[in-house]
């Protein structure tokens, strides 16, 4: 058993490599941009697919400028608020498994209010502002926690989001102003994400707008275009998904961001929708998905050839007081059987709020080497959760 965060990533690597034939792509990505600034040159992304498994699933290596080591994909992006990981303080970050935890997801929407783009530029961008120089930031407007798409408020001028500061309409120009000041390692173009139940017409409109905004975003900042992930939407229509993917593939982008998932589509229809998109995408560029976070959803994404996932599930589990104990080695935990379901636990997670842990002096996961398991017992975490202490969330997120 490894670290909790690590668990999800390893889970995303299943099935076991040895059981499937692999084809190797060792060709390096060659894209040269005339407009690239030195800054972008230094931070240029490289992505290599190492092996394909079981059809669409693949393993890759992602090199990003600010990260000292390569990141193996499929990989999880740690969710952040205003550029800081939820609940994890910076001195604890190094204790997470490296290099996985070097990949952070951030939302430019968190910086709509302040600091201003000018101030962020004065500080020297996001890495400098949050003091995480060796971490990579992937920026996307929707973060599934604090910035949900508000399709009803979106119009031809810009995308609307439900943010902590209320509904906000974000136009491509504003969006790019923030992106240009933050200088994330990768960023996603503005998308009009719609839920699965909207009309065919509204869905088509969302595809047209998303493609149009991709052109707008790249047009506004040509230099930053070198690190753009083109947004692909299309709701639960296979045709619109394909149409959008085809359009985005024509553009000069660093990778792809697949949006519009986790918005009402069923588990059953999702694999076909995912495959419709990934089948059209060039193999040598990374693919990120938004809206899939449950372990089983991540598995669906991996099967469809997605490389990067968000970790909002960990965030929600943490808030709920649960700890992931996903058994990766096939070994069942002893002593947790029928009683588990009664207290909101199962074999992949335990609810530490439950009274059975009041006197439990064992760590969350035996043999786990994270800060929390090394230092604290289930009983202490139970106590912290029951008195609503912030430290509980910090320790659990680990």
């Amino acid at each position: 058993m490894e670290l909790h965060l690590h668990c999800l990533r390893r889970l995303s690597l299943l099935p076991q490599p040895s059981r499937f034939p692999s084809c190797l792509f060792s060709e390096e990505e060659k894209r040269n941009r005339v407009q690239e600034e030195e800054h972008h040159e230094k931070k240029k992304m490289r992505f290599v697919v190492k092996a394909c498994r079981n059809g669409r699933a693949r393993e890759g290596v992602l090199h990003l400028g600010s990260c000292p080591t390569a990141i193996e994909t499929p990989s999880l992006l740690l969710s952040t608020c205003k550029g800081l990981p939820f609940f994890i303080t910076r001195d604890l970050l190094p204790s997470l498994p490296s290099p996985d935890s070097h990949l952070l997801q951030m939302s430019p929407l968190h910086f709509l209010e302040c600091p201003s783009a000018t101030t962020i530029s004065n500080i020297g961008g996001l890495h400098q502002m949050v003091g995480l120089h060796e971490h990579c930031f992937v920026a996307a407007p929707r973060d599934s926690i604090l910035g949900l798409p508000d399709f009803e408020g979106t119009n031809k001028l810009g995308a609307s989001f439900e943010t902590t500061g209320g509904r906000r309409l974000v136009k491509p120009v504003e969006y790019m102003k923030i992106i240009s000041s933050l200088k994330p390692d990768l960023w996603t173009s503005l998308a009009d994400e719609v839920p699965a139940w909207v009309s065919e017409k509204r869905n088509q409109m969302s595809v047209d707008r998303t493609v149009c905004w991709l052109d707008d975003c790249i047009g506004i900042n040509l230099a930053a275009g070198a690190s753009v992930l083109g947004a692909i939407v299309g709701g639960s229509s296979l045709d619109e998904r394909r149409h959008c993917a085809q359009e985005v593939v024509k553009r000069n982008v660093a990778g792809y961001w697949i949006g519009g998932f986790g918005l009402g589509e069923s588990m059953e229809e999702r694999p076909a929708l995912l495959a419709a998109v990934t089948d059209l995408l060039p193999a040598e560029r990374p693919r990120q998905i938004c809206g899939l976070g449950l372990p089983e959803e991540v598995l669906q994404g991996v099967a469809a050839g997605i490389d990067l996932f968000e970790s909002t599930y960990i965030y929600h589990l943490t808030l709920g007081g649960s700890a992931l104990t996903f058994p990766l080695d096939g070994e069942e935990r002893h002593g947790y059987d029928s009683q588990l379901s009664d207290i909101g636990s199962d074999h992949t997670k335990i609810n530490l709020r439950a009274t059975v842990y009041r006197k439990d002096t064992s760590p969350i996961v035996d043999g786990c080497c994270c800060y929390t398991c090394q230092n604290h017992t289930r009983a202490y975490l139970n106590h912290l959760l029951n008195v609503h202490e912030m430290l509980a969330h910090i320790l659990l997120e680990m």
Partner: protein
Amino acid sequence: MALLIRRKEKAACSVTILRGPSAVHIMALRFEILGRFNRARAAQLTLPHFVCQTPLFMPVGTQGTIKGLTNNQLEDIGCQIILGNTYHLALRPTAELIDELGGLHNFMNWPRALLTDSGGFQMVSLLHLADITEKGVTFQSPVDGKPMLLTPEQSIKIQNKIGADIIMALDDVVRTTITGPRIEEAMYRTLRWIDRCIAAHEKPNEQNLFGIVQGGLDPALRDICVRGLVDRNLPGYAIGGLAGGEDKDSFWRVVAQCTAALPEDKPRYVMGVGYPLDIVVCSALGADMYDCVYPTRTARFGTALVPEGVLKLKHKVMEADVRPIDPTCSCMVCKNYTRSYIHCLVTKDAMGSQLLSYHNLAYMMRLSKDLHMSIIEGRFPEYVCGFLQKQFPKGDVPEWVCNAMEVAGIDISSCCVPFS
């Protein structure tokens, strides 16, 4: 006659057994003064779990944790001892559970020193229905509303179970601003209760029981109380009943009177004091230990402690300020974040107050260390002057500070003119 017995503890700690005519006084600490300037002293306080340097500030960890900070972070900023609130811990997770899990040190995995209060102050300040009689403090249980009684014996029993290095006697707490016979009653009751606390204390060779000097702002009552407690020959003494809204001139005079009357070779703890200026003044008057929620509470309101006083991070001018909170601070927060970014965090998120708490506690630890080192290195007056000049650049040092410094024998005349 004093007899020294060496014990093998986590920190090498000796137990001094003083044989008096009637009682045997055992203590689990060693207090060695390393340097002095007039009344001020820098000492090494050896407790069962940690060797502390005084003057020292103790952050308050109400529920067995300091707001949002991990134990590693507390060790990193130089925190030597944490205060736990007996009242809160006794309610949840309960003293019995803590005892069963090996004491509070084990429970929260904190290797350094701990101090618990008696629980009485929390009850009187948090519960309006608390009533004090000769038996103890009667209060309504916040769990089921039933009337409950905390006696001196129970307070000590609970604190014995929690297992902190220093435990506090239950005292009769009165609001500082009250006057009249109630103050006198409370002082005499505190003296009667100290004997019940001493008798109930089951672990005198593992935990140090401190007595608390009461007596309001009345010098005569304070004098009776100090002498009564000193007669009991306790391991350390606290000055209670202050920091409750009394005027500053009365405050420092009580501290000065008590420190002058307390034994030289025992630690002196001023309860509830935590403003940096108050700590500097009290240390000049010979106090050694302090506790306060101020640094973490003020962080929640977006305020940072800096050498110049305070910095309000919520203020609009911080929005575009790309400097660290305190350019002279070497804490993790000041090394990594700008005022503008923290401004943006404190207006909404918990993350901001956590970072500010970290810096503020780091500031208090640095203040403690600076006081300690300046006394040892014989430059305490210079340190005090430097401190006051930064806090009062216009030379407007409050009169009570000037008065206190005169008693402390520290010439601060250079600070009382505008500093250019």
